[in-house]
Each structure stands twice: as structure tokens, then as C-alpha cells.
């Protein structure tokens, strides 16, 4: 037992004293927060940009398809427009140019030059094949933006659908009204002790704990492996194994590294708690208003933060 304790002590103290521990303890939460925040930030950056409204629609259908498409691309953000007239331009709405099929090539060349002069973001070509639901074209500087392309593509689909519905005598708005069902489905978990709160919250909590366990096993498992490798490569293992059985050596390593992991996570939780309690004076130091506890915890500790932020959000925000 004394030998096992000696191994645990060495594994624990040498790791806790190392620079790696200091760095990981300090930057770990920042890193984990970054894992959550950066993808969210990237996703927000990839939302469709206002540039999508600065496009030209080259309408070679001779059916007013381009005008309806412009409205659909603009969506809710555009001001009320009158599409009965020739070409209606709203504040944030693509420009529609009606062209004959024979002049489409020339119109495309003109539009390309406008895009090259950065006067326009790009142009959409709609023709008979588009009406048939077969093809449409887009060219522009934002052609690599997945969000912009998805918005335009969906708008074209929606416009084709509306056109087809009109043909069979159905009103598009009526159809939207019938098919739109904003169901608010809440779930609540019941345990042996009664109601246990939101089912979604339980799922998120379980997911968070599972993720933490997964990370812990991967990170600290790798630490144990690198420790064994170090002893094998430096030949210390031979000296140690001449003094203790191999199972004692492995048990000492696992317990020592496990204790390091526990220490690290306790430090993270304690830091989160202290920051949470002292957030008012800290924020005041930087001249910022105090943020709510859930929001603060989401910044301090991504997992718990994610959980509590979800709980504190109004239901409409979830939708």
C-alpha cells in the first residue's frame, strides 16, 4: 500500500507542479468555451448577408416570375411593394430586368461587368427551364456563401411552387396559412419523486455530462498513456518494476492522473463559482453592466453555461 501511495503521490505532485497543468487549468475553460463560441460565431457569420439583396434578376420567362422571385428573396425585410407595375424596386430588394431569351447573353455580359465594377453582388438568370423546375443560374462575388445561395435557391423554389399553385387555382397565401403550424411542444420528465422539470433540459444536462466524461477520458487517458510511454522510453520502468508489481504501478498511475483531473475540474468549478459571485464588482471595474447569472455562467463554463442559458431563455427564443 505504501508503494502504491508513493506512485500516486509522484504522479499527482509532478503533474500538478508542471507548467502543463498551470496552462491547461487556466486556458482549458477558455479553450472549451472557444469550442462552443467559435462555431456559433462562424455560423452567425455564415447567415445570409444583405449583399443578397443587391443582385439583379435577369427574367427571360416573360411571366413576371422575376418580380415574384425578387419579393421572395427580399422576404420579410423588404418594405411593402407593388408588383403590379413593371419593375418595382424596394429599399432592400433585387433589381429585376425583363429580357428576351435572345438577348439573355448580352444582358448577362452587362450584368457581369456591373458585378466586376462592384456595383452589384451578382445576378440570377431565370428562364423557361426555371419555370419547368429544371434549372436556374447564379453568378456573383458571393457564390461561395452557402447561406446566400441557400436563400436564393429556396426563394426560386418557393416562387416556382407559388406559380404552379396559381395555375391550379390555389392562393399562395392561403396555402401558407393552412400549412404553417407553429406548434409549441413542451416536455416534462416524471420520475419516482414526481415532476422533474423540462425533458429537454434533462437531455442537455445528460449530454453535457456525457461530453465532459468523454473529454475527461480522452484527455486523462492520453496523459496516462504518455506517462507509460515516458517510463518505457527512459527505461525508468525497469527500475520501478524491480520494486513494485506491474498492476500496482498501473493502478498508481491511473489514480494519480485521475486525482490530477479531479483537481483541475474542481478548480474550474470553484473559479466559475467565485467569478459568478464576484461578477458585479468585476464588471464594474471594466465599466460594464452586470450580466445575469445564467449568461455569466455560460461564459465561464461552457457546459453549465449552455445548460442554464437554455433554461433561462424564453420559449419563443428556442423556436
Amino acid at each position, binding site marked *: 500500500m505504501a*508503494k502504491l501511495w*508513493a506512485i500516486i*503521490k*509522484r504522479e499527482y505532485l*509532478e503533474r500538478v507542479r508542471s507548467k502543463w497543468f498551470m496552462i491547461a487549468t487556466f486556458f482549458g475553460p477558455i479553450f472549451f468555451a472557444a469550442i462552443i463560441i467559435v462555431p456559433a460565431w462562424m455560423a452567425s457569420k455564415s447567415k445570409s448577408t444583405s449583399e443578397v439583396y443587391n443582385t439583379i434578376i435577369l427574367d427571360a420567362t416573360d411571366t413576371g416570375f422575376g418580380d415574384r422571385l425578387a419579393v421572395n428573396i427580399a422576404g420579410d425585410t423588404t418594405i411593402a411593394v407593388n408588383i403590379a407595375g413593371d419593375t418595382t424596386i424596394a429599399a432592400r430588394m433585387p433589381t429585376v430586368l425583363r429580357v428576351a431569351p435572345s438577348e439573355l447573353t448580352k444582358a448577362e455580359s452587362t450584368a457581369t461587368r456591373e458585378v466586376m465594377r462592384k456595383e452589384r453582388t451578382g445576378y440570377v438568370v431565370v428562364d423557361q427551364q426555371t419555370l419547368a423546375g429544371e434549372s436556374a443560374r447564379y453568378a456573383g462575388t458571393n457564390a461561395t456563401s452557402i447561406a446566400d445561395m441557400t436563400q436564393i435557391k429556396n426563394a426560386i423554389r418557393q416562387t416556382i411552387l407559388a406559380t404552379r399553385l396559381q395555375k391550379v387555382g390555389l392562393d399562395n397565401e392561403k396555402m401558407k396559412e393552412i400549412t404553417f403550424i407553429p406548434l409549441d411542444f413542451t416536455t416534462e420528465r416524471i420520475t419516482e419523486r414526481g415532476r422533474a422539470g423540462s425533458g429537454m433540459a434533462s437531455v442537455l444536462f445528460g449530454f453535457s455530462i456525457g461530453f465532459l466524461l468523454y473529454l475527461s477520458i480522452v484527455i486523462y487517458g492520453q496523459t496516462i498513456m504518455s506517462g507509460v510511454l515516458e517510463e518505457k522510453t527512459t527505461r525508468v520502468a525497469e527500475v520501478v518494476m*524491480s520494486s513494485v508489481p506491474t498492476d500496482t504501478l498501473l493502478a498508481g498511475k491511473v489514480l494519480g492522473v485521475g486525482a490530477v483531473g479531479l483537481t483541475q475540474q474542481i478548480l474550474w468549478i470553484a473559479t466559475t463559482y467565485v467569478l459568478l459571485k464576484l461578477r458585479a464588482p468585476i464588471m464594474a471595474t471594466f465599466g460594464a453592466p452586470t450580466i445575469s447569472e445564467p449568461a455569466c455562467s455560460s461564459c465561464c463554463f461552457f457546459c453549465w453555461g449552455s445548460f442554464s442559458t437554455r433554461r433561462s431563455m424564453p420559449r419563443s427564443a428556442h423556436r
Partner: protein
Amino acid sequence: MTEYAIDIVNVTKRYAEHTAVRDLTLRVPTGSVYGLLGPNGAGKTTTIRMILNIIAPDSGMIHIFGRPSNDPKITERLGYLPEERGLYRKMQVRRVLKFLAELKGVRGKEADRRIDEWLERLSLKTPEKDWGLSKIDELSRGMQQKVQFIGTLLHDPDLVILDEPFSGLDPINAQALKDTVVDLKRRGKTVIFSTHLMDNAERLCDSVCIIARGEKVLDGTVTGVKEEHGQRNIALALDGDGMEGIASILRDNSLVKRADDSNRFFEIELAPGADPQVLLRRIVESGAAVQRFEMIQPSLLEIFLKKVGTNVREPGADAWSGGVEEG
């Protein structure tokens, strides 16, 4: 106190198709300095690892001080210096030594006292500098070897096993090691070391065992082995002049059976029936300036070469120059 510190009976160890140790039986008397001699790849390190219970033999029995080698209580009486030295590089010297001491049952202030004593003894703690506070990777190779050696002896083991202890040591540290081995012997400790440096073995060992290709070739006390292989050998030392005439005399098969030529020093084995006086007369007549002409016993090296030969390396052992070695 048992008569034998180590008692190995019919031990065999195989690795796949290769037999590292074959039916080895040897006994190391308690309180002796014992040399495990053999060429590279002979099975010395495998034998040592089995003694230390790092690897288990496929068959046979090993007893240390009368107890099975896998008895946990026996490990605290053993000190081991491996051939390939290794320490925790990022750890402080003192902490490494304390850890090694704790593994052998020496704790607290007693461990600190012994560490201080040994650091001072091996000049790693002086009024100017205490290397005990440095990290291992801040030490020179020689200093690291000293630290490893301290780790081997810190718990005052009854049996000290040194695997190729002289490899990589400079003459000063090698002498310090020899002095320590002699001191251990004086204090009644048993020292077993593997080496292929025959002159060290000859000077230090009470008993030896020569193994080759995993098999014992011979064993016994150094005196006994020499007597058993006693020959009419002559040590001849010459001054610089008259070396030319010697070559033809050494080639005379009626006088000389074999000669080990070390430039101005020769170890000569007389041919059967040859008269040493005739040899001396002919050397003097050749004009060589004789500094020494002495009848001697054969050296361990000579016995080793005679018994083992020069072609004893295992197939593939030439790759040893790349750093892979197994004693």
C-alpha cells in the same frame, strides 16, 4: 543468513523462436562479488531481469536469499542498476531519489538523511552547488549515472545487481564505482554484475559465471576457474628496441602455442613440452630488451576467449552498433 544469495535452477526463457536463456543453473554465494560474463546477446540481461522478477522464466526456479524471486518482501532487499540508465528527466534529483527510496520502503527524514549523505559522498552536493535541487535533464550524463547509482544503493540493499555498470563511465567514476563495490563487499553485501570487460571482472569478482548463447559455459571462483584452466603462460614485456626479432620466435610452434600481442606486452601460451628457459634465451639472443618475463596464470579474458571463442554472437547481433543490446 542463507548460503546463497541467488539460487537459479534449470531456468529457461524463450522469445518466440529464440531461446535467450537455456537451462541455466548457477548459485551466487552470499557476501561475494559475482561476475556474470558473456558476449553481447549471451543472455546476461535476461537472466538479471528474471532474478528481479521483471520477466518470468518459462521454466525453472529462482530463489533469492532462500525465498522465491516473486516474493514481494524480497524486492526491498534488492538494488538494481539497469544497463540502459533511465530517470524521470523533468523531475528534481532529490524528488527522484526520494521516490525510488519510498519504493524500497525508506521514507521521510530517514530517506532525506540518506540522500544528503550519498549526494555529498558522490560530490553532487558541495558548499558551492547542490545538484539535488536541479532537474535530471540539467545534469551531465556522468552525474545522471551517479544519481542512478545512488538510487540503487539508497535503501542499503543486501543484494546489489549492476548490469554493465562500467559502460559509459569515465575513469574517475569507474574507480569510484569499483571502490563502492569493494566497500559493499566489506559490509557483507552481495554484488552481482554483468560485464564483458574481463579485466574489471578479474580484479573485482570472487566468483564468475561465463554464459554464451544463453547457456552456462563455466562458473566458479576466479581462483578455481584459473586453476582449472591453468596453462603454462608467460607474461613478456619488452623495451622499444629489438622488436623485429621477436616475431619469428612467436611464430615458432615448437615453443609458442598462442601469443596475445599487445605491441610491447605479450601473453604467451607455451607449446606442449616447450621449455620456458629456451624461450627466454632465444628472446635475449634476438637482441630484445626484456623488461619482464614471468610465468603467470591465464587471464579471465584468455579463458573467456578459449571457452567462448570469438564467433559467439547471436545471428543479427551485428545490429548492436545501432544501439540495440541485450546482455
